[in-house]
C-alpha cells in the first residue's frame, strides 16, 4: 500500500509538470484548432533559458527560493517572447491558408527549434544547476516526499491557478474564450483577434517555460531534443482531458503522470513512452472528445 501511495505521489508530481505543458497545447488548440508542434520545443527552450540565466546571473551559486523565482521569471519571459514571435511570423501570415499548410509550418518551426538548438547549445546533454537544495525528504508514515517534488507541485499549482484567474476572471481571458468560440463573432464584438491570439500563445509558452525549469530541476540533464517525447505525452494528456478544455488538460495530465509512474514502478521504464501512445490510441478509439470534452456537432 505504501509503495502504491509512493508511486501515486511521484505520478502526481510528474503530472503537474505535464499539466503546465498540456495547458499550452489545449489553449492554442481551443483558439486556432491547431496542434502547435513547436510547443514542446518552447518548453525545451525554457529549460535552456533557465540554464543560461542561472549561469549568467550567478544564480547557481546561491540556491534558494529567490534564485529559483528569478530563473523562472527569465524562462517564462523568454518563452513568452519566443511564443509571440512564432505566432506573429509563422502562424499569423497563414491564418487563411489550408489547415495542412499551417500544420506543416508548425512541424517546420518545431524542427527548426530542435536542430537550431543542437547547433546553438550542442547536441550533448547539459547539466541543469541545482537551484534549490532539496535537503532531507519529508517522511509521512512510510512515504517519502522529496522537498523538490513538493516545490515543483506547489509552483505548478500556483501557475495553474494564476492561469485560471486570467482566463475566467479578467477581460483578456473573456476575450480569449470569446475568440475560441468564433473568430468572426468575437471580431464583431470589438475584440482584437490577433492580439488575443498572441496573448494566448504567450501565456501558453510562459507556462511551458516554467515547466522547462521544473523538469530541469527534477531531471537535471537537458538537451535540445528533450521536448519531443515530453511534449508528445503532454499533448496526449490534453487529448485525454478533452483538447480545448483547460480543466480537462490538468485532469488528463494527472492521469498521464500517475499512469506513467505506475508503469515505471510495477513494470519496466522501457515502456513508459509506449504507454502514452497506447493511451492515445485507446482514447481516440473510445472517447475521441476526451474526458471533459463535448462532442460538438459539425456546422456545415
Amino acid at each position, binding site marked *: 500500500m505504501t509503495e502504491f501511495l509512493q508511486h501515486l505521489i511521484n505520478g502526481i508530481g510528474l503530472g503537474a509538470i505535464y499539466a503546465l505543458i498540456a495547458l499550452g497545447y489545449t489553449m492554442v488548440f481551443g483558439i486556432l484548432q491547431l*496542434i502547435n508542434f513547436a510547443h514542446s520545443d518552447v518548453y525545451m527552450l525554457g529549460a535552456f533559458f533557465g540554464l543560461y540565466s542561472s549561469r549568467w546571473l550567478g544564480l547557481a551559486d546561491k540556491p534558494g527560493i529567490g534564485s529559483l523565482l528569478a530563473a523562472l521569471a527569465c524562462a517564462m519571459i523568454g518563452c513568452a517572447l519566443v511564443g509571440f514571435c512564432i505566432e506573429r511570423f509563422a502562424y499569423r501570415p497563414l491564418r487563411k491558408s489550408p489547415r495542412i499548410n499551417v*500544420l*506543416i509550418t508548425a512541424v517546420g518551426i518545431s*524542427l527548426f527549434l530542435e536542430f537550431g538548438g543542437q547547433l546553438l547549445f550542442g547536441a550533448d546533454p547539459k547539466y541543469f544547476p541545482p537551484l534549490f537544495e532539496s535537503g532531507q525528504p519529508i517522511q509521512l508514515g512510510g512515504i517519502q516526499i522529496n522537498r523538490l517534488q513538493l516545490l515543483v507541485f506547489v509552483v505548478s499549482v500556483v501557475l495553474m491557478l494564476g492561469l485560471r484567474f486570467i482566463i475566467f476572471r479578467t477581460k483578456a481571458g473573456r476575450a480569449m474564450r470569446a475568440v475560441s468560440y468564433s473568430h468572426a463573432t468575437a471580431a464583431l464584438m470589438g475584440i482584437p483577434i490577433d492580439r488575443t491570439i498572441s496573448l494566448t500563445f504567450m501565456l501558453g509558452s510562459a507556462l511551458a517555460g516554467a515547466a522547462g525549469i521544473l523538469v530541469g530541476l527534477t531531471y537535471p540533464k537537458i538537451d535540445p531534443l528533450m521536448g519531443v517525447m515530453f511534449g508528445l505525452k503532454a499533448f496526449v494528456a490534453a487529448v485525454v482531458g478533452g483538447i480545448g478544455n483547460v480543466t480537462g488538460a490538468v485532469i488528463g495530465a494527472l492521469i498521464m503522470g500517475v499512469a506513467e509512474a505506475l508503469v515505471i514502478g510495477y513494470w519496466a521504464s522501457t515502456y513508459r513512452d509506449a504507454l502514452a501512445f497506447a493511451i*492515445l490510441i485507446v482514447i*481516440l478509439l473510445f472517447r*475521441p472528445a476526451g474526458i471533459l470534452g463535448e462532442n460538438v456537432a459539425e456546422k456545415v
Partner: protein
Amino acid sequence: MAYLKNFGVILVGIVACVGLSPVAPELMNPYLFSILMYAGINITLAVSLNLVNGLTGQFSMGHAGFMAVGGYVSAFLTTEYLSKMNPGLPAGLNEIVLFAAALYAGGLASAALGYLVGLPSLRLKGDYLAIVTLGFGEIIRVLILNIDAVGGARGMPGIPKWTNFGWVYAIAFISIITVRRIMASRHGRALLAVREDEIAAEATGVNTTRYKVTAFVIGAFFAGVSGGLFAHFLTYLNPQTFDFNRSFEIIIMVVLGGMGSTTGAVVAALFLTALRELLRPLQEITRLDFRMVIYSLMLVILMLTRPNGFFGTKELSDFGPFRRFKRDALKDAAAADAPAEGARG
C-alpha cells in the same frame, strides 16, 4: 484493350529496369551508384507518402517507422529462413522468388500496422494522424531497440545483398504506376474529394474514413517494401537509421515537390538525395549538422512563400508535349462504356 495497353506499359517498364540492372553499376563509380540506389528507394518512399499527405490531404509523420517495420521483417525473414531455403528453381530465379516474398511480407506487415495505427486516428477529423504517426515512429524504434532477435541496439548485420538496380527502380516504377492508376479511378477521385473538403465529400456519399485508411495502408505498404529494399542494399540495419529525421526527409520531399504531385515527389526525391551529398563536404568542414536546420527552414519558408512547392498539384502530363499521356478518368470510363468501339480497336 485498355487493360492490355496498361499491362504492356508496366511490363516494358519493369523489363527496362531489370535489363539495365547489370549495366548500371558498370556505368559509374560505386559512390555515384549507391546515391542512385538511395534515390530510387527515396522515390518509392516519397511517392507513397505523397498518396497520403498530398493526394488525400492527411498528414503522416511516421513513414520511417513503416520503413523500419518492413525492413526488419523482410531482413529477419531472409537472414533467418529464406537465405537457407532452396525452392529448387533454376539458379537465378531462386533468389528473385525469395526476395520478392520477403519484400511482400515486409510490406504486408507494415500495411497491417498502418491499419492499426490509421484506423483510430483517421476516423476523426483534424490532425490526429500527425501526432499519432509521430508517436508511432518513435515507439517502433524503441521497441526494435528492445527486441533481441533482431539485434536490438547493436543492429542487425549479415543481411544478404539482394537489392540491385532492377529491384529498386522496378519497385519505384510500380509505386508510381499504382498511385497513377489509383488517381485515375473513382477511388482516386474520392481521395481528392476528401482532400478538398471532407464534409462535402461525406455529404456526397464518400466513405471518408475508408478512403483515408485505404490510402494510408497503401502508403505504409510501399514504405515497408522500400524498407526491405533498403535493408538488403545496406546489408545492415540499425534502429537509429529510422529515427524521426528520416521521416522528416521524406516529408520534405513531398512538400518540396508539391503536395499532390507524383511528378513532384519523384523530382524532389532525386533533388534532395543529391542535395544531401552536396551538403556533405560543408558538414565535414564545419562539423555541424546544418542539413536538418536547412530542411526545417525550407519547410517554413516554402509554406509562407510558395506552398505549392515545385509542381503544386500538377503532373508531368499537364505540360506541353506530355499532355497526351494524361489520364482522364472520365474519358477512360467513356471508353469502357463503349464496347463496340473498344472491341474493334
